């Protein structure tokens, strides 16, 4: 189809516009490649963002993003929508694969050198451009998660940020903070439980 106004190619209407991520994964489990394309379109940016945080080699990042969606194709039938969103599911896979890739590369030193600063994650949350309401809700929630994180005791906060935002494994967090592995596991777990509690209180206050 040629768009006479700009002389370019106008893609056909997207048949998956109103289809949820969870429904798309079910279609992927049924071997629907178009549904996989749509999931790539929706989530590749986030997967790429996380991969870049963990693995600084651009060449590795591009390959990793493909790896993540290829893995989704292979295990879409194992996805449990009651446990996590599709994005979280993909990011969990991406984190794991990126850590593997980083381990096998020589990027470790660059990781520590480049991640010295702090980031306000609430300000940089990306949201679908065509969903302004969802975007505002997401931003609002992001701010509360950020606040809840900041209210955690500093040791828990540091361990959680290193594990989730900087993509370090529990063992790497323990080495970085020079603490026993068991202590780090406990800090992260306790911190996550407190985080959930704080967010539940926020949700309660917002609903009433």
């Amino acid at each position, binding site marked *: 189809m040629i768009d006479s106004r700009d002389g370019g190619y106008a893609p056909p209407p997207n048949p998956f516009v109103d289809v949820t991520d969870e429904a798309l994964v079910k279609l992927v489990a049924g071997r629907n490649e178009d549904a996989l394309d749509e999931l790539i379109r929706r989530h590749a940016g986030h997967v790429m963002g996380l991969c870049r945080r963990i693995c600084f080699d651009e060449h590795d990042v591009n390959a990793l993003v*493909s790896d993540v969606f290829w893995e989704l194709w292979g295990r879409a039938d194992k996805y449990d929508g009651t446990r996590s969103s599709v994005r979280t599911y993909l990011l969990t896979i991406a984190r794991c694969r990126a850590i593997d890739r980083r381990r096998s590369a020589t990027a470790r030193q660059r990781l520590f050198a480049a991640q010295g600063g702090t980031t306000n994650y609430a300000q940089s949350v*990306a949201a679908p451009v065509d969903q302004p309401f969802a975007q505002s809700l997401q931003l609002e929630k992001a701010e509360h998660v950020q606040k809840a994180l900041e209210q955690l005791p500093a040791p828990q906060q540091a361990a959680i940020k290193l594990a989730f935002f900087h993509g370090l494994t529990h063992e790497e967090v323990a080495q970085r903070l020079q603490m026993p592995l068991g202590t780090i596991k406990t800090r992260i777990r306790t911190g996550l439980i407190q985080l*959930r509690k704080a967010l539940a209180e926020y949700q309660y206050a917002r609903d009433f």
Partner: protein
Amino acid sequence: MNCAEVQENLIAFLLHELPTEEAQVMQEHLDSGCGDCLAQRSILDESLENLFSQLPGDSISEQEVHQIQQDVRARIRLSQNPADLITISKPNWRQYSVQLTMALSLGIAAALLGPWIAQPWSHPDSRVVHLEPMPARAQEPVMAFSKVRFTSSRVPIAAQLIYDAFSAELHFFSTELPALQQGEQLELVLVTPTGEVVQSIPLTHSAAGGRAVMPNVTTRDISSCEFLLRVELPDSPASSQSSPAT
């Protein structure tokens, strides 16, 4: 594994950080319906969801999205039809049919004229580089496979590269390789378009020729990178890529 151990390792389990066997034990424990551990898991699931929702996404162009979609679809096609394992290279064989014919001709010529070519694999001055990436212009590829191009100072190499997308391995076979001197090591090198060496592996070198299997090679590597051969000198490895062959 008791409940305390399960709960201590739950996050690592949810993040796929545990070894397979340990993860299986965890899964069995959760599948057994342990109420405390399942409740703990639900809490952690929710927290992970909240944390991952904080991660910003990168802006990504339509072209990049399309490239990823094509990469994944290519893998799907390969997995659906194992006979097409070298699908990626098929169009290139046709594209380089003239060059391949030339390569074959040159190979035969080299075999016939070999005895009359003095030290064909030796660089006249330093024997630093026997093989080099072919410049983009002015030379004809002696052997082509996808974007793999081999040439040497004087004699073409008869080599074959097969990419196995399942195992992500690149297999190198060659029946003709340069004669190496004491301590020298021939390497297959994966190089990005900007000249960065991604990885290199030594070739198994015998009278029958050279063999190598390079692991962790992606389809993107195949489409965007080049594979080179180089001689690693025992005394000055850093110089092995320096001098152009004559």
